[in-house]
């Protein structure tokens, strides 16, 4: 059986060039289906990866109670000074607590792909801020000078928005800013931000001495309970929400990823039905074209099962080639491509499309399923080719 099958399969595959048109159409249409699926998955995975990579579990994010997002929160300088004395917070080499007061405003940047305005977050920070982001690295230039109109720019912003090159002056709203440095944080959401001195931001945006969020490096992830207990019991500070930074970001990625998956999968499956119809049609024609050949083989003793397997394998090979082509094509076209969308904080999150191994596997499974379903009926048909076809003239 195996020998028969492989003999017939080889014969089929060798005769493929004679049916080049339809075979190629099958391969390419399956490639397109897989391409669409992988494109969506790459988008979802890329976004998810950016959000998931953001935040460390030993950093606490402190917001005003009930505010949910940094943008909604307002905290006072007094609250900050009290938090600085709280237990469970780690200190730097000089014994200073690792706490950062931050104020986050939204400015308009010009997106490169559409040429239209989009919300960019500008974060007013103190000099402690970098030490609260694990992988912070100044990749070019220098840190801003406190008290000056200087900004440092996340590398993702540089990729996706116009006018943020090093040493450039950029007008945001009514103010001019000098780009003095570029920074990376290892592909996290922070790379989609502009950082400036918090004092300057408070002044230019009329926020007095108020801030929005406090980040604190904890002595250990569990120390967050000490911090919470402290905040609850101190009558001088109003109600606060204290989050584990990692969970804070993870909770924000849900919707978009769900939407992308909810659109991408059904779309790919519906398209797969179209490609399946194409594969079936092509395999049907293939059996048609090989009628006499199959009948001849059957006449000289090959089994119907072997003929069927030969047809099915031809279909699977075409589908697998299509799937691979789609995966390679998507990888070359989209992997690493930068895109940005509105994150949950109403500001742009820049992310890179990520074609992952898992999604390629999913794409290949889909391709092979199309091949199997499209090939199965023609395969059965080829097992029952009447032997007398051997005498047919046409």
């Amino acid at each position, binding site marked *: 059986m195996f020998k028969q099958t492989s003999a017939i399969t080889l014969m089929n595959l060798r005769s493929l060039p004679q049916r080049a*048109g*339809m075979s190629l*159409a099958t391969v390419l249409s399956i490639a397109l289906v897989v391409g669409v699926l992988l494109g969506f998955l790459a988008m979802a995975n890329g976004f998810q990866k950016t959000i998931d990579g953001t935040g460390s579990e030993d950093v606490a994010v402190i917001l005003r109670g009930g505010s949910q997002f940094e943008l909604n929160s307002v905290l006072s300088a007094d609250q900050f000074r009290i938090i600085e004395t709280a237990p469970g917070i780690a200190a730097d080499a000089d014994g200073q607590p690792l706490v950062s007061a931050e104020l986050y405003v939204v*400015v308009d940047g010009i997106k490169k792909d559409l040429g239209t305005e989009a919300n960019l977050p500008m974060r007013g920070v103190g000099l402690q801020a970098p030490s609260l982001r694990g992988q912070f690295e100044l990749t070019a230039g220098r840190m801003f000078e406190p008290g000056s109109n200087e900004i440092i720019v996340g590398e993702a912003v540089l990729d996706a928005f116009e006018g943020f090159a090093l040493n450039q002056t950029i007008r945001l709203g009514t103010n001019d800013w000098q780009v003095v440095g570029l920074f990376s944080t290892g592909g996290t959401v922070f790379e989609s931000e502009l950082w400036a001195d918090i004092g300057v931001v408070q002044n230019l945006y009329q926020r007095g001495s108020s801030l929005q969020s406090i980040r604190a490096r904890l002595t250990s992830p569990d120390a967050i309970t000490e911090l919470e207990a402290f905040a609850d019991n101190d009558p001088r500070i109003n109600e606060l929400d204290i989050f584990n930074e990692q969970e804070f970001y993870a909770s924000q990625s849900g919707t978009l990823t769900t939407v992308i998956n909810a659109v991408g999968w059904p779309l790919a499956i519906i398209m797969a039905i179209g490609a399946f*119809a194409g594969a079936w*049609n092509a395999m049907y024609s293939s059996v048609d074209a090989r009628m006499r050949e199959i009948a001849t083989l059957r006449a000289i003793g090959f089994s119907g099962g072997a003929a069927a397997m030969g047809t099915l394998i031809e279909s699977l090979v075409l589908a697998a080639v299509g799937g691979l082509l789609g995966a390679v094509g998507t990888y070359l076209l989209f992997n690493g491509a930068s*895109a940005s969308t509105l994150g949950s904080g109403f500001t742009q999150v820049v992310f890179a499309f990520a074609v992952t191994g898992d999604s390629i596997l999913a794409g290949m499974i889909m391709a092979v399923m199309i091949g199997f379903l499209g090939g199965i009926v023609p395969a059965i048909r080829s097992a029952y080719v009447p032997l007398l076809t051997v005498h047919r003239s046409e």
Partner: protein
Amino acid sequence: MNDLTLIRKNLFRKKLRAILLTLSILIAFFIFTIIGSFNRVLNAGVELAAADRLITMNNSGFTQSLPYAYWGRIQAIEGVRNVSHMSWFGGYYQQPTQVVQTFAVDPETYLAAYPEFLMPDDQRAAFLTQRDCLLVGETLALQYGWSVGDRVPLLSNIWQKTDGSSSWEFDICAIYTASVPEMSTAAAYLNYDYYNEALAFNQDRVGMMVVNTDDPMANDAIANQIDAMFANSTAQTDTATEAAFTQAFINQIGNIGLILVYIIGAAFGIILLIVGTSLVVAISERTREIAVMKTLGFPAPRIFRMVLIESVMLSLVGGLAGVGLATLVLKGLAPVLAAFMPGLVVTPGIFGMALAMMIGFGLITGIGPAMNAHRVRIVDALGKQ
């Protein structure tokens, strides 16, 4: 019998092939119709934007508010018919995940600015006069089972009252529907004065202004005049037409247009490949019959036309089925998605576009086989056994 009989018989000669091709065409047009309808609703804000409405925001970004006093100053500009303002309330009901899009507005000028809001006269009067009234959209009311007369608390994730609480009590005194199906009725509106006087901070500020002009032709001039008026203030403004404002917001989500082009391109790429090659094969199988037709005296252009009509018919059969299926599916989805995608239907515009694409697709896939049929040489084709 006429040419159409011949065409129809040829089309369905191999039933399985005809069904499979129809199915694949159906799917492409199904996708086209669904995506086209979603895209239309997504962009409806731009198309439905009233020509006479301008939006004025703080030019430092949407998180920055404007002084309440600007309201009166803009009203004084000549050519301005009505000015209203709205402030984002950041509301939620019971728990933070149950977000309610809530805006604090000046009721009278707001309803004047947006005649799309429809409600019974007594409810309208209540919204205009009752300070703690909450005007609720039909979809939203349905979502939480609210009806006129209910008292509901809304919490704000931004604002606090002087007493430290974030909860505002409201009396649902009006429920609105929209005069255009594409307008969302999933939002709630409250009286600015009621909200403002309880605010612990940021009092006497508004989120943005809505300006109605007397004459859309004067929009640019008035927008410039507004922005110039506040050019030397601490809060400078940026005024744009409602359409431009809405478009800018859509663009923030991403390059949706490009994604849609990719999807529809892929869907049609698939059927172009499948149907195109199948028709070439189908016609080449009929070479001999075409030669006989020519021998009988059928002129080549007539045969060319028949093959082309055949491919257009195939495209129409599959395409119309696809649009029909999409219409049914959208009918089922529309109530479910009313909050995010109001007015989800297949419009005559989308249908017309789909129809044009069916004919175009039929011509594109048919032209090659039709030319092959035109070229069939009787002597060669009949000589082949």
